[in-house]
Every structure is written in C-alpha cells, then in structure tokens.
C-alpha cells in the first residue's frame, strides 16, 4: 500500500490552501505559519495518544525525546531521525538528513525561502506530541541545504 502518498499530497494541498498562490507580506506569512503549526499540533496530540497506548512509562525527558526520534518519526515518515543532540539543559536538536516533506522541492539552496511553510506542520506535530506526553516546548525548524533539516526543541520548564 502506497500509504505515504495520500498524506504527502494532502499536506501540500493544505500548504497551498493556507498560503495561497501569491506572496504576501511578512505579517501575513507569520499568521499562516501559526495556522499550519496549530493544525499540526492537534494532529500530533491525536497521533501520540494512539502510539503510546501500549508503551511503558518514560524514564525522563531524554527518554521521551528518543521516542519522538524513533517511533514517532517512523510513524510519520518511515524513517528515524538521523541525529539527536542535546545540551542537557532543555534544548534538543533533531536532524533529518532527508526530510520527506522537502524532498519534492529541488535540492540545494534555490528555494530555501520556501522551506519554512513546509516545516510548520511538522513543528506542530512534534510540539503536540510532546505536549500530550507532559512536555511543554517550543519547536522551530531550520534548513541550510535541502532536503536536510534540523528541528530545535526548547523545553519550557514549568
């Protein structure tokens, strides 16, 4: 079953719908990014709930992050995160060297400015998943060369 195709097509249609065809101003783009991110957030919450139904309790924050990098990412994109780094003070950097939702854009630097809109939904997915696991965070993404991508998770201490 080619089950990743429907999501990929749907995702790009969502982006197309929210951002429209024309380039709008920065403020507008910011609002749209927030809109897509919060859609991702709700989806992430729903997914993690089903995914962790039968898993044992997490030891600590790092254990949760490992779960996101392995099981959650595999559920989303059929691969694990390629590299996880942390400063042990609440910042985690998740690197995907071939991020699926960027793979249809041409590699390299030409369309770099287009990248943020294709990352917002996934940032929301991660933030939503973490939030349901009791970890409050801010998730941002950056790309320097497509289709590699880094997601930065900043844990918000309560």
């Amino acid at each position, binding site marked *: *079953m*080619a*089950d*990743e*195709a*429907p*999501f990929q*097509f*749907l*995702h790009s*249609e*969502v982006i*197309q*719908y*929210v951002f429209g065809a024309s380039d709008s101003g920065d403020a507008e783009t910011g609002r749209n990014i927030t*809109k897509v991110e919060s*859609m*991702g957030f*709700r*989806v992430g919450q*729903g*997914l993690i709930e*089903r*995914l962790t139904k*039968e*898993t*044992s309790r997490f030891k600590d924050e790092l254990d949760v992050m*490992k*779960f996101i990098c*392995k*099981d959650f990412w*595999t*559920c*989303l994109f*059929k691969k*694990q995160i*390629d*590299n*996880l780094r942390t400063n042990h003070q609440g910042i985690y950097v998740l690197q995907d060297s071939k991020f699926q939702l960027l793979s249809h854009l041409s590699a390299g630097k030409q369309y770099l400015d287009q990248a943020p809109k294709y990352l917002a*939904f996934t940032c929301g997915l991660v933030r939503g998943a973490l939030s349901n696991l009791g970890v409050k965070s801010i998730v941002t993404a950056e790309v320097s060369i497509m289709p590699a991508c880094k997601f930065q998770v900043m844990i918000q201490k309560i």
Partner: protein
Amino acid sequence: WGREQGRGSQGRQMERNSELFTLTYGALVTQLCKDYENDEEVNKQLDKMGYNIGVRLIEDFLARSSIGRCQDFRETADVIAKVAFKMYLGVTPSVTNWSPAGDEFSLILENNPLVDFVELPDNHNTLVYSNLLCGVLRGALEMVQMAVDVKFVQDTLRGDNVTEIRMKFIKRIEENLPAGDE
C-alpha cells in the same frame, strides 16, 4: 544510538501512517469550517482541493500500478475500487448499482478511513465531510480523458449503514492536438 530498535511494534506502522492522513484530513476540515461561513462552501473547497490532488495523484498511480488503458467504464470502475482505493486507502469498496446503460455505478464503502474518530457536530448538517474524495476521482479521471460526475449519496456520518459514492460517466474528453501535429 541510531541502531537501537524503537519500543513500539513496527508491524502496525501502516495503520499508523493512515492515522496521520486521517487526522490531518480532520484538521483540514476543521480549519475550513472555521474559515468559511457555510457548509456548501466547505464542500466546494474540499472538492477543489481533491481535484488538485487527483490530477497529480494519477501520475503516481499509473507509475506504481503499471495499469494500461481501460477498455470500458466497467473496467475503470474495477481498477478504481480494487487497485486505487486499495493502494492509497487500504480499503476495497464494492462496485454495484450499475445503471442499465452502464454509464453509472456506485462505490460502496463499508469502512471509510477518512471518518475514523469523526463525529459531525449538529450545526453542520449539510457538510459532506469526505467530499475531497469526489474531487480526487474527478481530477484523476480527467487526466485520463474521462469527464465524470462524482457525489456522495449515502454517508455513515449521517447515520446511513454504508458510505456510497455515485459516479456517472459524462463524456470522453478529446485530446486537443495542435493543428497539423498528428
């Protein structure tokens, strides 16, 4: 750390990936209901987005399935139900209720993957939740020179026992070859 196995069972991954699609679709419909005043407009937007997906999905479908040209509408119906639905949504609708002229049929879905976890709120009684599918079918078939009319006639979300999509063949679209290029 990269080589360790995750703790979840990998066997249910397929199912999980379709949950991603289903939940994302739900988030989209929710967003559209916020953005538009009435259900009619949401239905229209879903159909339009489906159409955009269909015209691109057909290429993916033909490449993966290596299916050639269909001889008639009956064969088209079978390919849609047994190959396309199976491939992308993991379900196989039955093909029934053919019109005597053979230009109209129904796809009956016992389980519609789009509506897992979904309940319609009372104030959306004209919303056709899965209308995206109509657009996808219309768009995909248009790319293989078939104009069709697609609509939902039964929906489990509205309390029907099954979900029924009615498809009607309208016409064959002639390819517009540039003059003198035959």
